[in-house]
C-alpha cells in the first residue's frame, strides 16, 4: 500500500507492506536507524517516536497506520548540526551510558517538555516509565530533564569523603 507521511519535517512516499511495523519501516525503508528495537512487544520503549505530537511504541504501529501522520524521530532532535537544549542537558548530566535506550528516552522527554515545560520529578518519572534503561538507573536522566527545564538547582554530584 502506498503511504505518505512526514518524518522530521520531510515528506516521504513509499510502498509499505501491510505486515511491516513503523519501527522497521523507519529503519529499513527510510534508513533512519536511530530508533532502536529492544523487545518488539511494546514493553521497553526503545522504539519510541512522536506521532502527531504523542509518543508511541513504533513497534506496535503498522507502517500503513502511519499514513498521513507527522512523525518525529531522534534524527530530528538536533537542528543544523547543533544539539537541542534537551540533548545538551543529557550530555552534561551523564544521562547516557550504552546509548541504546537514549533515542526513545529523548523522544519521551521531548514530548513531556512540549506538553509540560516545568515537570515535577514525579511527572518526569511517569513520562519515562515506559522507557527501560538498564545502565543508568534513571537518576541522571531525571536530573537531565530537570536541567533542560531549568529546574536543577545545583548539579547533583558524587560526594568525595
Amino acid at each position: 500500500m502506498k503511504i505518505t507521511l512526514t518524518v522530521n519535517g520531510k515528506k516521504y512516499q513509499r510502498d509499505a507492506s501491510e505486515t511491516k511495523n513503523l519501527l522497521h519501516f523507519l529503519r529499513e525503508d527510510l534508513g533512519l536507524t536511530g530508533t532502536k528495537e529492544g523487545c518488539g512487544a511494546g514493553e521497553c520503549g526503545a522504539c519510541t517516536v512522536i506521532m502527531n505530537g504523542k509518543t508511541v511504541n513504533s513497534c506496535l504501529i503498522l507502517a500503513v497506520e502511519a499514513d498521513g501522520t507527522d512523525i518525529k524521530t531522534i534524527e530530528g532532535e538536533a537542528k543544523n548540526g547543533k544539539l537541542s537544549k534537551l540533548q545538551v542537558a543529557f550530555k552534561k548530566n551523564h544521562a547516557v551510558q550504552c546509548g541504546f535506550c537514549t533515542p526513545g528516552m529523548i523522544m519521551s522527554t521531548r514530548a513531556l517538555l512540549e506538553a509540560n515545560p516545568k515537570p515535577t520529578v514525579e511527572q518526569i518519572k511517569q513520562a519515562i516509565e515506559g522507557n527501560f534503561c538498564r545502565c543508568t538507573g534513571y537518576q541522571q536522566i531525571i536530573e537531565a530533564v530537570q536541567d533542560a527545564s531549568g529546574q536543577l538547582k545545583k548539579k547533583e554530584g558524587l560526594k568525595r569523603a
Partner: protein
Amino acid sequence: MLDNTPKKDLKYVGKDVERIDVVEKLTGQALYTADLEFAGMLHGKVLRSPHAKARIKKIDVSKAKKLVGVHAVLTGNDLDYRVGLYLVDKYILARDTIRHFGEAVAAVAAETPAIAQQALDLIEIEYEVLTPFLDPKQVFDKKAPLVHPDLGSYSYVEAVFTPVPGTNIANHTKLRKGNVEKGFKEADYVIEREYTNPNVQHVPMETHIAVGKWDTGDRITIHTSAQSPFTVRNLFAHSFKIPHCNIRVITPYLGGGFGGKAGIHLEPLCCCLSKLSGGRPVRIQATREEEFSLLPCRSGLIYNIKTGVKKNGKIVAQKMTMYWDAGAYADYAVNVTRASGFSASGPYEIENAWVDAYTVYTNKPFGTAYRGFGHVEFSWGMERHMNYVADTLGIDPLEFRKINALRPGSKTMTGEEVVTNTGSVTKCMDAVAKSINYGKLTAAELAREKKTGMKIGKSVVALQKAPAMPPFTGTVMILKLNEDGSVTGSHSLTDYGMGTYTSLAQMIADVLRWPIERIRLPIENDTDRDPYDWQTVASKGLLLSGNAAILAAKDLLDKCYDVAAQALRAQKCDLDHDAEKVFVRHHPKSHVTYKQMAVGYAYPNGNAICGPIIGIGRYIAQGLTNLDKETGQGNPALDWTFGAHGLIVEVCEKTGAFNIIKVASAYDIGQVINEGSVRGQAIGGMIQGLGTAMCEGYIYNDKGQLLNPSFTDNKIPTSLDIPEEIDCIAIETPQIDGPFGARGVGEHSMIAVCGALGNAIEKATGAVLTHMPIRQENVWKALQSRSGKKATAKATKPAKAVKAEKPAKSVKAEKPAKATKPAGRAKK
C-alpha cells in the same frame, strides 16, 4: 602506577568530564550492529527446543530446504564442532540430545526474516522427552540423570578447574584456610542457614546480534555485539581449527552487556550458515524472548553458610557450601564458581575457612558472567547471614561487621595480606551509616511511620570484589600522532556503556598535558586493526587499560622528546613540553611543535628524520598466581574494591508492599577519575541490583520449561521503582599500581544491595527472607510466618537455625530474646 603528577596539575583526572561518545548516541548516529547493512545479507533464525531434556529421534528439514528464498538449513548433524570457554562442552546446534529449554536445534538463513521463519515452521522434529535434572542440590544422588555423560572426554583448563566425570559436577572449587574444625570447637555459637537465588537475565537493551561472513579460503569476518572481540576470535579459531589471522572480529557500538555478551554466542552459527550460503553475510538478531533461554543467563545459587562465632562477635570458623545451578553448559559458570568461591565470605576476615563450591550441570538455560560475577548472588546469602548471626549474638549488625571486617594486616580467604592501600571497607560502612542515620529513626521518619502506618527499617551491608581473570591478563594501548598534533588511540577494551574510554582519554590528556578534544579513542574495535586485550569484563579495564594508556602517552612523549632533542641539538633531560610543543626548558623559544614532528620532522632544506610517531603502552597484571587446587590459597586479586550500601525501607505489614526510601552507597575506588561516570556506575549498578532483589528471576515448571521469558512476566526496574533518595560516596585510598591510584567499580554497585533490602525489611517487620527475589508476595508470606510480632520473629529464628553443635544450649537460649532486638527499630 600511582602517577606522581601533583593533583593541582590534573586538568581532567578526578573531574566531571562529559563522555567522549555521547554526541553520536544522543543523535541516533552511533551505529550498533543492527544498524549495519551488508550487500547480499541473509537473515538467520534459530529453531529452539520446547523441552528441557529430550532425545532428537528424527529431524526432517527437506521441506525447509525447498522453500524459495532459503539459502541454508543446518542441524546438529551438520556441525561436529564444540565450543567452550573453559570447558569445551557445547555443540553449536544440539546433536542427538537436548539439554535445556530454548536450546538451538536447527537454523536457517533466508533472504528475509519472514522466509526464514516460514522455513523454521517447515522443519519436522520428533523428540523423545526425557526426565530432566533440575535440582542442583541432588548433585550427589547417584541415580540422578547425567546432563553430560561424556564429561570425562571434554577438554578443559586443567590448571584451574576440576570437573568430576560420571557426575553433574562441571567444577569443584575448594578452599581450605586454617583449621575449620578446631575453629568450630572454639566457637561459642554455631549458626547455619541456607540462602537461594534463581536464574536472572542480564537484559542489555540491545539483544545479542552477529553478522558472520565465511569466505572461500576460510577467511572469516564477524560483526558482533560481543564485549570481547579477541575472545570471540580465539574461541572461534580453536573450535574450527582456523588460524587466528584468518578471523576478523569487529565490534561496533554496543548496547549494554553486563557479562551476557562476554563469551562467544551467535557468531559460530552465523558463520556456518554463511559458509553454506556461499559466503553471503548472515545476520542473527536475538529476539527478546531468545535472550532468556537461547542465550545465557545468570546461574542460580543455593548457598549454605555455617558460622562459628565467639560471644564477643569474632567469627572463628566458617564453612561455606555453594551449589551453582549452572544450567546445561559450563560457559563462565565454572569460573564464577572459582571467583566467588575465593571471596565467598564477603569483606570479612575468616581465620578458619572452608569452601566447597560446585558448578552443577542442570537441564536449564546455562549461566554465564553477569555483573558481579557470583558476588551478587553469594552476598545475598552472606549479608543476610551476617545480620542473622549478629542478631543471635545481640550485637548490632553494623558493629558485628566492623569487628570482622578485613583491615590492614588481615588475610583474605586465599591468604593474601591486606595492606593500607588495599582500601578500607570500614570507611565505606561508616560513610553510608552516617548518610542514612543508621541505628535510629529520625523525627521525620517516626512521623512518616505514623502517617503511613508502614514500618521503617534500616540496614548497612558491605561488599568486596577483585577482578576474576587469569593471572597473566594483559592489554595494550597504541597512540598514533596525527598531522595536526592530535592523537588517535587503538586498543581492544570495549566500552559498552561504562564510560571507560572517557576515563582513559582523561588520563592520556593529563599525561600529555593536551586538551582532551585532541584525543580520539574510536568506540569500534577490530581485531585486524587493534592490538590484543583479553576481555572487557571483571572491572579490570580501568586499571589495566589505564596503566597501558599512561605508558602509551609517556612513550609518545618520549619519542617526541627524541625528535626534539635531535632537532634542537639538546639533551632530553633539558626538555619539557606543553600542549603544543616540546621545548628547551631554559630557553623556551627553542622548540618543536607536535605538528612539525607528527609524520617525521623535516629541516628547512627538506632533510627529514625519525618518521611518524606512535606511542605504545603494554601492561600486564603483576604477581598474580593460579590458586592451589586443594587449598584455594594463592594470589588471585589484581585489586580489591570495597564498598557498602545503607538502605532505608518502609514496609506495609498488612500487604507486604514496600518502598525503598533511600540507598546510600560508598566505594573505596582509590582515585576518582570521572565523577559523573563513577556516579553513573554507582547508581546504575545499584538499581540493577535492586532489580535482582525486588522482582527479576526465572520461573520454571516442573518439566524445566521457562514460564516467564518476556518483559511482561520478568520485569526490570523502571523509573518508578528507584529509591526516593540516592547518595553516592567515593572513598579514595590510592591503589599503588592503579592508574593515578584508581581501581575499578563497574560491578561493585550491584553487589550486596539485595542483602541490604532483606535486612532492612527484617529490621522493620521481623519478616525473615532467605530467597531472592523479594517480591511483595514473598514479604507477605514471611510476615504471615511470624507467629506474633517482633518478639516471636526473634524467638523462632534461633530455635530453627542455631545449631547447638557444642556449646551449652542454655547460653544460646537466653541470649536471643534480648539480643536479636532489631537495632533499626530502637526508638530514641
